[in-house]
């Protein structure tokens, strides 16, 4: 990835100001992943700006419980190079 901008905006939902930005990550990665290169990213997010997740969602096995849907599991994330992240 190169020269990326992500903007989740400023949370404005009424009634839940403490949580309105939840899950609005900028760049979100779930393993297994190998050879990830990011050079240049500007991120404004309501949650994690840049998230590398070998596992996620506080579960033991995302491959069976489908917490983040049926297409996401878990695994190692290796060989990562990140530069110019703002």
């Amino acid at each position: 990835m190169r020269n990326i901008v992500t903007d989740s905006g400023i949370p404005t939902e009424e009634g839940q100001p403490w949580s309105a930005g939840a899950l609005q990550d900028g760049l979100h990665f779930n393993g297994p992943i190998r050879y990830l290169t990011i050079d240049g990213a500007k991120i404004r997010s309501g949650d994690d700006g840049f998230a590398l997740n070998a596992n996620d969602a506080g579960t033991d096995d995302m491959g069976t419980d489908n917490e983040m849907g049926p297409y996401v599991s878990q695994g190692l994330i290796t060989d990562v190079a990140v530069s110019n992240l703002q």
Partner: protein
Amino acid sequence: MNGGGTDDTTILQAVLDRAARGVSVHLVIDGTALVSGLNACGNTTIECVAGGGLYLKDGSNRAIIRNAHRSRDAITDEHITIRGCFLNGTRYVKTVRPPLYLEGMKFEIPREPDGTYISGLQFFGVNDLTIENTTLWHARSFSIWVANALMRAVSP
């Protein structure tokens, strides 16, 4: 392409679907298009020029662009490039299905019907993915979401 607020999903998807027949596709978008979500097969480049980009149609409960054959355990698409695009998830105007809630937590989880979080760009099971010079604006959840990108042979 019609532009100007008309839903251009059908015509753009028809172009992208040529890649499913083994043809490399380079789709150039030189204006603003309203879509309800596009699927990119392998060997596809989506390039926006002259300020072009995609707006997600109100009520579309899916990613603006995702790979066509999503998988958690196989590599199903490869050589996909997104370049130069302004991609607007239109979160603040969207009407969506009733919110779901994580147990014990009170925030809304914007999900597709199958439970996948609604994100801006979504690539699950892709080799050789390139995203460059691209802006993601007001996605419903994660702006860019990549999973299962382990370099290995492509499954048929």
